[in-house]
């Protein structure tokens, strides 16, 4: 029974409520890093890790510090600082483990801090009412995982298409951001087909 709920959360965050194509979060890196498939994959994995860990820590902070001490209004500032710290950590790890990936991601790695999707999933975990549920922590982490997977999926789809677009003959004024947005719109239209899906 529990697995069914968790699977439901996973499927709905990856497909039905895809963070990029449906909820329009996480767009800056989506546009910036989706030019090549391998850097898109690297970014996606980093974001998944940050989202799961952020969901974990922000849930605990909300439940055991913010609510008991009645300082819920500090959630925005505490969440974003937690995320900033996590991204710093991920940066250091990637720099040690894979310097080439570090180079490829460039400025976009510290920019994961300002990725609306990461703060977004932390806030949405609270809004979904997981705090009152028995498996709240696990549900939040699964939602973080789903959000990251959905983000990565959108990123990979976009990167695949953009690699092809490089070779296509696009009118001068549509090149770059305009055609990218129109492509994203078509992807979003396709994903709309998932809405209303009963799990």
């Amino acid at each position, binding site marked *: 029974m529990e697995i069914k709920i968790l699977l439901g959360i996973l499927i709905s965050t990856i497909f039905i*409520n895809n963070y990029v194509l449906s909820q329009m979060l996480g767009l800056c890196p989506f546009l910036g890093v989706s030019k090549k498939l391998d850097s898109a994959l690297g970014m996606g994995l980093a974001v998944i890790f940050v989202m799961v860990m952020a969901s974990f820590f922000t849930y605990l902070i909300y439940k055991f510090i913010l609510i008991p001490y009645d*300082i819920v209004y500090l959630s925005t*500032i505490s969440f974003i600082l937690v995320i900033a710290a996590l991204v710093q950590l991920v940066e250091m790890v990637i720099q040690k483990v894979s310097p080439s990936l570090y180079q490829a991601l460039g400025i976009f790695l510290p920019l994961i801090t300002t990725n609306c999707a990461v703060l977004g999933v932390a806030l949405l975990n609270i*809004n*979904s*009412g997981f705090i*009152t549920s028995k498996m709240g922590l696990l549900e939040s982490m699964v939602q973080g995982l789903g959000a990251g997977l959905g983000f990565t999926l959108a990123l990979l789809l976009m990167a695949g298409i953009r690699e092809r677009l490089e070779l296509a003959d696009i009118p001068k004024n549509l090149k770059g951001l305009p055609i990218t947005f129109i492509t994203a719109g078509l992807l979003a239209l396709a994903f709309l087909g998932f*809405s*209303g899906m009963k799990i």
Partner: protein
Amino acid sequence: MNTIIKPTLILTAVAFTAAFVLSHVEKITYPNILKQKKEKQDKALLLILPGYKIIKENKTEIDHAEFHYWIGEKEVEGKPVKAYAFIAASAGYGGPVESIVGVDEHNRILGISILNQTETPGLGARCMEIASQNTLFGKLMGVENGDDGNLSPWFQEQFSGLSLDSGINILKKGDWSPAMKNELMERNAITSITGATITGRAVIRSLDSGFIKLQKALSVELNSAGGQK
């Protein structure tokens, strides 16, 4: 050592300043926020229990969750008639949809008022939409087709009069119009928002589960009152 101490001290100072400023702003705004919430709830109660006087309000725990309900009473032809209100919530598309519901002694819905929802604007969020008779052009030309102040969202209004004894059905007939009223009453149904059946299902689910909890809460009351009504 200095490269760690100084930044840490500065960061701590910044954090303290932020917390200090925010706690003061919060103290100013908190009473307003509480007042808004209570006003909204009171206004909704008036709407769904029209003419009834609230004789009891209770928050109890049913099935490991908080259940908030009210008992109202009014006189009809010299005899006291009771009605009940409760808060119901169920998961919609973007999060829980919370409503306050009024039911009479015959388990008929007197009215519902959706208090909180985070549905998609343009789709599920239309559950809060008022079927305004006014158009933009009309407003600009100074033509008013009726006062929107007293209108209530059509999606919520259509629940009035439906029975909770049998299940509520969903029909997909597009936006509500007065012509649908008879058929919907006959089939104990509501018409869903185009493209947002999930929101309708969520409200119905919350009504069903809330109603069961109400009955449990009322039987607890009866028992504790020693069988006296």
